[in-house]
């Protein structure tokens, strides 16, 4: 999901850079206020851990392999602000040292993978944890949250590419969404397994971070929520929404309407239409909701299968 240079045009790069700078600045302030000095080195070590963990390949059918992305896992282990800082650090190092992801596209990558992924993953994790208690509930929550966050980050990435005029939305959205719905299942499973492994070996590491600062966290989440909503509104809404001609007018204004091409990749649910529902946005939403429900059921089953008896943490 790392966008290279050249795929993002000036306006998208500028907007994403501003949103990401605000988000990371806020996360840094929050971490400085909230994290005891004793745990400051943990941020750097967690970033190094995330990088090393991404190098571990999990075998998938057919000789291919996948790896952890990890925003949600780090958010569940360390809290949302720390996760934003940690993933941003990983992205900066990947960009400068390993040339994975472009310099101009850094803002977009930070928004998708550090801010959107961590924050959305964390919120969903907390909400599900609120319903399902115990370690089984946490494992279910993290699997589901990781899936949702991965898919959402991919959709935002597709929106940015489409807004830049690099890849038309009709190609980018189905391709990115379907591929990442599959990737997200692996991501959810790995995150849950790793989380469970940490829970079993050092439960104190998790309780220590997850239970502090509940009151402050609400205000924190509201601000992140505003930022994420703003980003999604800018990148995704113009395409997903049936406003008269959100993109078309922009396209004509900038004179690249001829560049819009027919969809290349056939989607499994053609154009995300559910038969009987003609409103395109509604159909996409219904298809998305159905997918989420299926994944949630899978996560519940997995929690049951992985954690034999509900135990108190």
């Amino acid at each position, binding site marked *: 999901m790392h966008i290279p240079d050249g795929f993002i045009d000036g306006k998208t790069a500028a907007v994403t850079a501003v949103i990401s700078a605000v988000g990371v600045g806020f996360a840094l302030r929050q971490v400085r206020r909230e994290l005891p000095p004793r745990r400051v080195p943990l941020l750097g070590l967690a970033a190094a851990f995330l990088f090393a963990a991404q190098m571990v390949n999990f075998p998938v059918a057919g000789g291919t392999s996948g790896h952890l992305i990890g925003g949600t896992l780090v958010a569940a282990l360390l809290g949302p602000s720390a996760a934003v800082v940690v993933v941003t650090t990983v992205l900066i190092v990947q960009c400068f040292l390993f*040339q994975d992801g472009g310099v101009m596209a850094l803002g977009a990558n930070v928004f998708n993978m550090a801010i959107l992924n961590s924050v959305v993953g964390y919120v969903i994790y907390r909400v599900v944890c609120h319903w399902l208690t115990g370690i089984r509930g946490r494992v279910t929550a993290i699997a589901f949250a990781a899936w949702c966050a991965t898919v959402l980050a991919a959709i935002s990435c597709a929106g940015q590419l489409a807004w830049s005029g690099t890849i038309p939305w009709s190609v980018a959205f189905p391709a990115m969404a379907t591929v990442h719905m599959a990737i997200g299942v692996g991501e959810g499973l790995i995150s849950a397994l790793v989380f469970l492994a940490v829970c079993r070996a050092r439960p104190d590491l998790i309780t220590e971070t997850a239970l502090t600062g509940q009151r402050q966290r609400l205000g924190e989440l509201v601000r992140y929520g505003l930022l994420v909503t703003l980003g999604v509104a800018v990148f995704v809404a113009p395409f997903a929404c049936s406003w008269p001609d959100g993109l078309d007018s922009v396209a004509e204004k900038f004179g690249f309407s001829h560049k819009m091409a027919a969809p290349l990749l056939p989607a499994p649910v053609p154009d995300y239409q559910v038969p009987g529902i003609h409103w395109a946005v509604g159909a996409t939403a219904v298809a998305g909701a159905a997918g989420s429900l299926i994944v949630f059921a899978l996560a519940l089953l997995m929690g049951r299968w992985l954690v034999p008896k509900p135990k108190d943490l």
Partner: protein
Amino acid sequence: MAGAQTEGPVSVHLVNHHHGRPDSPVHRLSAALKLGPALIIIVATVLAPIQWRAWFIGVAVLLVLTAWLSQLPLFFLFRRLLVLSPFVLGVVLVNAFQPAGRDRWLAVAVKSVLCLLTVILVSNTTPFSQILRVLKSIRVPALLITTLALMHRYLFVLMDESERMRRARASRTFTRGRRFHWHTLATVVGQLFIRASERAERIYDAMCARGWK
């Protein structure tokens, strides 16, 4: 990660500072003098319309000249370009089949290869600590710099640690079932997190002992 064919620590093969002589004119140039122009080149290249042939050719010539001056092995540069651009290649392929997409395809390919080459050249001729110093001088928050520095310092340590754990696991696990394989791999990753956080505690003590803050 194929760790089997290498003798030494993994880190050496992944990064870069080990190539080229550290005393070429490009290496000796101060970091700010490389980062600034590199940023300008990248921004201008991304923003430039494809009609500006002269700009792209000029940047390409400049980059080739820099590559030659920096004495980095050509094969190494070429390999990094190829390894790093599967995404570029993918999008280029998708666009190549579009009816009217050829111009755009060319633009995207040229722009991303030029930017990629710029970053490869800068990152391979500039030590990371110097990059951090430049970031510090442009008022990037200290917490982010500390985190970046610590990550860079312990990145290779943790990668070697995970390689050692992988080797230890490989020499002890005999089951081939996929379920158990994922389980063991996840346990290894979890253990890596635990070791990282324990190491962070020790680092904090060491930092305090040396008068940090």
